[in-house]
């Protein structure tokens, strides 16, 4: 059984975000493999190590820098990568992204047992693409999972979704879509030999022409939504800070809670 993991190159959390003409100024951003995708890659590689999966394929759509995200996935243990890279993809919304990923799956051959995603990418934070891909392919899906058991012979998976007040346990037939989050596993730090080995693993490049898509179907032109503008959130005014004897500071805090924001 082959499984596919979807990987996104995203700005490092520590990056300071700057705007230029209401657009993101990307010049000084440092990029990493989306941390949520690490849980997905780790889970796929563990399935392979447990003998349940024969091959782990990592797919990314993005500019050239997304190759580094794929290399990170290959260093964790994915077998090969696919990079969908085309200038006309710039400005694609999540619907277009899902459409392109589905095309790439078709191109690569459709005999996958599972599609694994991160629950969200830490830049867009939409949580959209996995569900959109699942619907386009008519597959069952379990989002935000913290436990997964796969039985390839029975063609089944059982996944626990972390939801409000507990866990939903979903039983699905394969192939299925899962989205991974913290609590599912502890992603490993790739060893130096594995990082070196990852450099020799194959990455296949696809343009949109390779996927039988036209420029009008992707990017801004093919999207249902568009970003009108970016702005910085309103700056919070500096609050008060009190220091002193516990009795005094607590009195001041109680006064704030009672008289100013009226919660007690």
């Amino acid at each position: 059984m082959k499984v596919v993991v979807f990987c996104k190159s995203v700005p490092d959390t520590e990056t300071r975000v700057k705007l230029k003409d209401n657009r993101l100024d990307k010049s000084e951003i440092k990029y990493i493999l989306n941390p949520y995708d690490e849980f997905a890659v780790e889970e796929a590689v563990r399935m392979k190590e447990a003998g349940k999966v024969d091959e782990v394929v990592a797919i990314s759509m993005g500019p050239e820098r997304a190759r580094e995200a794929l290399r990170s996935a290959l260093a964790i243990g994915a077998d090969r990568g696919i990079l969908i890279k085309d200038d006309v993809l710039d400005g694609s919304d999540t619907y277009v992204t899902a459409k392109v990923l589905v095309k790439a799956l078709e191109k690569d051959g459709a005999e996958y047992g599972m599609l694994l995603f991160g629950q969200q990418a830490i830049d867009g934070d939409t949580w959209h693409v996995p569900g959109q891909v699942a619907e386009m392919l008519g597959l069952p899906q379990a989002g935000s999972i913290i436990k997964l058991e796969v039985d390839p012979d029975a063609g089944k998976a059982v996944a626990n979704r972390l939801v409000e007040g507990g866990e939903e346990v979903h039983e699905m037939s394969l192939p299925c879509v899962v989205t991974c989050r913290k609590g599912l596993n502890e992603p490993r730090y790739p060893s130096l030999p594995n990082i070196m080995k990852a450099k020799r693993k194959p990455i296949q490049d696809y343009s949109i022409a390779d996927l039988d898509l036209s420029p009008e179907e992707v990017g801004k032109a093919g999207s249902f939504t568009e970003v009108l503008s970016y702005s910085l959130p309103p700056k919070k005014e500096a609050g008060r800070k009190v220091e002193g004897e516990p009795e005094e500071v607590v009195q001041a805090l109680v006064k704030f809670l009672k008289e100013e924001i009226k919660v007690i």
Partner: protein
Amino acid sequence: MSVWVIADQRNGALRKPAFEALSEGRRLADQLGTNMEAVLLGHNVEGLCNEIASYGADKVYLIDHELLASYNPPAYARAIGDLIKEKRPQIVLMGGTMTGRDLMPRVAARVGAGLAPDCIKLEIVDGKLKATRPAIAGKVRVEIGYKSDIQIAILRPNVFEKLEPNTSRSAEVEKVSLEPSDLDTKQKLVEFVSKETGRPELTEAETIVSGGRGMKAPENFAIIEELADLLGAAVGASRAAVDAGWRPQSDQVGQTGKTVSPNLYIAVGISGAIQHLAGMSSSKFIVAINKDPDAPIFNVADFGVVGDLFKVVPLLTEEIKKIEAQEG
């Protein structure tokens, strides 16, 4: 060209984000001079229609079927998506519960419509929806415009104001049938493992008391829990406290945990790493208690207490108890 709201229920009870979405749907419908209509899915849930009407729905589409008794993503998406394709509302809203965030992408893909998640503001501009949402860990705000005729949005819980219900209102109820399909049988919710604490859900709580590395040991969270219970608050935790095994994963607030927007967030012994701020900086009021005067949490706090949390928190609990006793 009406405004629709998917009214999220679980175990026969409507969820708080559903009321917020209904209320916002009513406001948008009034702006557009059109109807607000709700979609209710489940099994044996017809009794909820009156409550939905009291939040301003003119009509309720009721899809009541065994298959929909618990959350089934393919079946839910098919039921809602096909109804949208048939009736073609202009706007479709749903509250950002774990169901809403999971389900609406499927619905939007089925319909072929634009979707904006985690919205904190919705407006009508030139007759179309415009959505505002945070992105990149809350560091930017993004304004999203739609090109599709049908415009779908997911609302961040605890942001949109809930209307006062008007129980004299009633709504027309239209029952919609659902024909089972092969896809529905590919998935089944087989069990719900309850982890109820008796406290409010983090994403829906008015007040949250969170503890971090400064708590030093899991048993010390007792003082957080006592304060939280006094305030009717949820208990949260920083990543450090979760990674140390002091609190369950479901309590984590921040980038790899939950995003919350309570009225009041009390951060106890939390330094305020950027990953934590990403999950709570949209709280209306923030109180920080920390012994380090340079902790970054103070940069976002409306009220900061520099001091020993093990003295300050129990004293605060005591003082609040006194006030409540006085006020009876």
